[in-house]
C-alpha cells in the first residue's frame, strides 16, 4: 500500500514535470513559428493548459516533500499530545478543504463534458480534457492528505525536512 501510494504521488509529479516542459515547448513554439512564418495556432492556450497541469498534478508530491507552506509558529512551540492534537486539527481541516476542492474539480471537468464547454480561442479544445489534469491532481492531493491524516493519527507521520531549505542554509 505504502509503495503504491508513493508511486502514485511520484508518477503524478513526473506528469507535472512533463507539463512544465510543455509550457516551455509551447511558448518557444509560438516564438519560433512566428519567426519562420509558419501558422501554428493555439500555442497560447496549450501553454496555459500545460501550466495548470504542472501546478495541480504536483500538489501531492509537493505536500509529501513538505514544501507547501504553512504557519508553524504555534505548532513549533508545542510538544507531545498538544502538538499531536493541533496537527490532527490542521490535517482534518485541510483534508475537508481538499475534499471540497477535489469534488468540485471533478465536477467541473464532468460538467464541461456535459454542457460541451469549448475553449473560445483559436485552439477550440473541449475544456474537459485539460481540466482532467486539475481533477486528477486534486483527487491525488485528497488521497495524500488522508494518507497524512492516517499516519498522524496512528503516530507514524514523519515530516520530511524540506530540501529547499537545505539549499539556502
Amino acid at each position, binding site marked *: 500500500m505504502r509503495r503504491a501510494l508513493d508511486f502514485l504521488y511520484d508518477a503524478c*509529479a513526473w506528469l*507535472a*514535470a512533463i507539463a*512544465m*516542459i510543455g*509550457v*516551455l515547448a509551447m*511558448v*518557444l513554439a*509560438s*516564438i519560433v513559428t512566428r*519567426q519562420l512564418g509558419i501558422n501554428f495556432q493555439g500555442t*497560447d*492556450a496549450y*501553454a*496555459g*493548459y500545460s*501550466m*495548470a497541469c*504542472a*501546478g*495541480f498534478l*504536483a*500538489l501531492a*508530491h*509537493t*505536500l509529501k*516533500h513538505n*514544501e*507547501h*507552506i*504553512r*504557519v*508553524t*509558529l*504555534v*505548532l*513549533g512551540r508545542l510538544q507531545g499530545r498538544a502538538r499531536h492534537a*493541533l496537527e490532527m*486539527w*490542521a490535517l482534518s*481541516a*485541510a483534508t475537508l*478543504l*481538499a475534499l*471540497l*476542492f477535489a*469534488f*468540485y*474539480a471533478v*465536477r*467541473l471537468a464532468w460538467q464541461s463534458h456535459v454542457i460541451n464547454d469549448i475553449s473560445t480561442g483559436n485552439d477550440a479544445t473541449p475544456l474537459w480534457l485539460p481540466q482532467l489534469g*486539475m481533477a486528477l491532481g486534486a483527487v491525488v492531493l485528497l488521497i495524500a492528505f488522508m494518507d497524512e491524516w492516517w499516519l498522524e493519527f496512528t503516530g507514524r507521520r514523519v515530516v520530511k525536512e*524540506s*530540501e*529547499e*531549505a537545505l*539549499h*539556502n*542554509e
Partner: protein
Amino acid sequence: MSDVAITSLLMVVLFALLGSGVWIGLTLAGVAWIGMQMFSSRPAGDAMAITVWGAASSWTLTALPLFVWMGEILFRTKLSESMFRGLAPWVNRLPGRLLHTNVIGCTIFAAVSGSSAATCATIGKMTLPELARRGYPEDITIGSLAGAGTLGLLIPPSIIMIVYGVTADVSIARLFVAGILPGIVLASLFSGYLAVWATMNRDRVPPPDAAMTLREKLFESRHLIPVVLLIGAVLGSIYSGFATATEAAAVGVAGSLILSGVQRSLNWATFRDSLLGATRLYCMIALILAGAQFLTLAMGYIGLPRHLAEFVTELGLSPFMLILALAVFYIILGCFLDGISMVVLTMGVILPTVQAAHIDLVWFGIFIVIVVEMAQITPPVGFNLFVLQGMTGKEITWIARVTLPFFFLMCGMVLLLWFFPQLATWMPSRM
C-alpha cells in the same frame, strides 16, 4: 450583517486557520468558502472550480513558472558565483559590500521580469546561498531580497501596470516609462538603507576582499559576461520584437539551459533536479494563487472592497488627504489580497474620485504600483513572503519582521512621489 461584522468574522476565521497551521492556500480557500456560503446568494463550489481553473490556466501567468524554472537552472550553474566575483570588486568599498547584490540583482532582473515573485525567486536562488556562505547575516539578506524583489513590478515590464493601464484607460507604454525613475530611486533608497545599516552594524558585515586596481577590477568583471549575455538575450528578445514580454521567460529558460551546458554543469541529474524543484516551487505558489483567486471571487460577491472604496470616496478629502487615505486603504487591503485583485476590485469606484481631485492618472498608476509592491511583503498574504518561506524554511512572521524596514522605505517612497511628482511624470511627458 454589517460589513464591519462580516469583515471581523472572516478575519477571525483567517487568523484561526492560519495560526493553527492549516496550509496557506487551503486557508484562503476556506475563508472564501465560508464568506461566500454565509454572505452571498450563490453556492460556492462550482464558482470556486471555474475561477480556480480560469486563473491557473491563464496564458498571462505562464511567465511565472518559466521564470521560477530559470531560477532553478541558474542556481545549479556557476552563474551566481561568477556574478559575485564580478560584482564584488565594485561594491567592496561601499558600506554593506555584497549586501547590495540583492538590490542590484533585483533591479537588473526587474527589467526582464514582470512579476515580483519571479524576481524574488530567481535572484534569491542565486544570492542567498552565496551570501550565507560568505557569512552575511540572514535577517538583512532575506529582508533586502523580499523588499528589492518587489521592484519587478515598478521597473518595466510589469504585469500590474498592464492591468492598471487597461482598467484606467492609461497608455501602458507611458506607464512603463513612468516607472523607470521611481524604480531607480526606490532601489537607491534600499541601497542607502543597507549602507546605513552596515555602518551601524560593522561587526556583522564580513571583511572586504583585498583591494584591487581599476585594471584588476575590470578584469574581474569578465565574470559578469554570462549574466550580461543572459539578460541581454532576454531584454533583447523583448525590445527587438523577437518575443513578447511574457514569451521572454521562455527565452530565459532556453538561455539558462545553454549557459549551463557551456559551463558543463548541465547533465541529467541537474536537469532533473531543476525541473522537479521548479515544479514543486511553482506548485506551492499555484495552490496559494488558487486560494487567493477564490477569495477574490468571494470578495467580489460579498462586495467588501467595493464598499470600502465607496466609503473612502464619500469622505470628501483634499487631494493629499485622499492619497494618504488611499495608501492606508490599499495597505490594509494588501494584507489580504494580491495586487491584481486589489486593482480590478476597486478601480471602478476609486478612479472617478481620483479624476475629480485632478490627480494625474499616470502618476496615480505609479502610486498604485508602489502600494501593490507593499502588499507583496505584508503578512498574512504576501507573495514574496511565501516565496521566501518556501526557499528558506523560515517562519513567515520572521520574514515579515526582517522585511519591515523595506516596507517603511516604500511608505517613504509614496511621500517622495507626492512631493516630487515629476519623478513619475517627467519621463512620460517627454515621449
